[in-house]
């Protein structure tokens, strides 16, 4: 049973986003980190990069494989979590906190409506 916080929005591809004004913070869900297990490396976007919703924004590598992480909404990257470059294992231990991946300035805030709420995501992962 994974942790699915109520206050976040979720993409079907297992990213979460927390919105504060026009800034969204993005990470991957507890379910996703559990599925990956043993995260050893994270590739982050560059600040200033313009991302479209659903495009590859980052890569999280476990022992077994590299997994693409998609941006749940469109926007410009304003900050990335450099701490993950030194401590990628934070993705496993604190996926909703210290292991946020990047922050972006939303360019199409209406896209948020297409994301799932906690109940919808919970239903998707079958918990």
């Amino acid at each position: 049973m994974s942790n699915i916080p109520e206050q976040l929005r979720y993409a079907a591809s297992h990213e979460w986003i927390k919105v504060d004004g026009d800034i969204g913070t993005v990470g991957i869900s507890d379910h996703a980190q559990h599925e990956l297990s043993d995260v050893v490396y994270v590739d982050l976007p560059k600040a200033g990069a313009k991302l479209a919703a659903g495009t590859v924004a980052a890569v999280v590598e476990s022992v077994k494989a590299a997994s693409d992480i998609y941006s749940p909404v469109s926007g410009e990257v304003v900050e990335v979590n450099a701490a993950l470059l030194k401590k990628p294992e934070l993705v496993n231990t604190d996926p909703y906190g210290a292991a946020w991946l990047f922050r972006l300035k939303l360019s199409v805030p209406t896209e948020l409506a297409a994301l799932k709420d906690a109940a919808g995501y919970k239903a998707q992962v079958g918990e």
Partner: protein
Amino acid sequence: MKTTARSPKSKEHRSKLRGILGWPGPLVARVPERGIARAQEVTGIGTSPANLLFARNVSTPTRTRSCPGPAVAGQEAKISSATVPDRRYIPTIMSDPAPLQKTALFTAHQKLGARLVEFGGWLMPVQYTGIVDEHKAVREAAGVFDISHMGEFFISGGGAPGFLNGLLTNDAAKPGVGQGQYTLMLNERGGVIDDLILYRLHDAEFLLVVNAAKIDEDRAWIKKNLPAGISFSDRSDATGALALQGPRALEIARAFLGAAWPEPKRNEITSHSWNCQPILAARTGYTGEDGLEFFFAGEIAENFFFALLEAGRPFGLKPCGLGARDTLRLEACLPLNGNDLSEKRTPLEAGLGPFVSLTKEAVFPGKDILQKQKSEGVKEKLVAFRLKEKGPPPRPHYALFQGDVQAGEATSGAPSPTLGYGIGLAYVKTACAEPGTPLELEVRGARVPVEIVKKPFYKRNS
């Protein structure tokens, strides 16, 4: 996140359908006198259990005082709650492009909370608790892997050694009865169809343990070349197999099988019984550690597995999946067919020269190509390389560069749990193959510094 979960929905393991038909008769050591006499008569060789176990003509049902039948009923291994944790994550069913096969241990893996993935057409556990955790268990104590998906072929007949010498690269006349040998089966171009272990069970009876994904292809190739008078039997479906690996593997096996167990030496295979059922134990493996590979009838697989886990628990034994198996074998630089070996690469290019006998008289497919390649030298070689600094782990198909020129391509790669940095195997131009050569690995458009190193990455103290 893009995931690659596969469906656990598939046909029951075929062994269920075939039952015990394909498995050799009961352990002959426990068969009444007449049975043993018949076995000797049929095979014309000694009475060592390894020989007798596979004398298939002996089919007398075994019922002795020490082994009341039915053989397994009532003797099931006790499974403690510590052995079977709560069911963990099982991949979401997405689609089922091809029916996947299951081993006789499929439900056991589910009970143990394994994460199941597709591998070579089989639904196999990739991990139970975690790849790093399982990897460390094998390096520091012991791990047990389901290898029931692998193929077991039996080849017998007076001309079997000669036939195998004309089929396989290594000298099949070398192993004595009860000994194993790593060898390769090539196509006419010298490319690798499969790498396998050949065990000599009798003078003229051999067990070939082949890769799961290659069973059908290997069988077809062998049958195509099979002369009259040599019998071939594919018992892959009816045979269960487990690899017990790690520095404490032998201690565990002794505790589990008792003092009467004939302990095989390195590369040897012996037979014994467990719960009145025949088992084979080979001192071989695919992890770089000491250990054993057990073969037995699929019917006893689950009981054997749980009983072994229980016996090994005080020694730190853990069930391990294919994820750890891959990182362990990569550290030991043991090649994986389909990645590091292929029909487009010869064993000489793969650095497997010691397992190719070009001096033996027999002509195996591809021998002329290998002779030519040996005299001219190979153009590309399978080498080991490591990341020079912290960075993204190498993965198969990543390109390696020397300046602007591509030097080769990775065939395997992973972060090494033992060493703490990224490691890989790659075919590179011979001029770039010397240990110490600096190259660059291309990862998602960026270049990462790597260095060719001497094989293997990891060697156990022994």
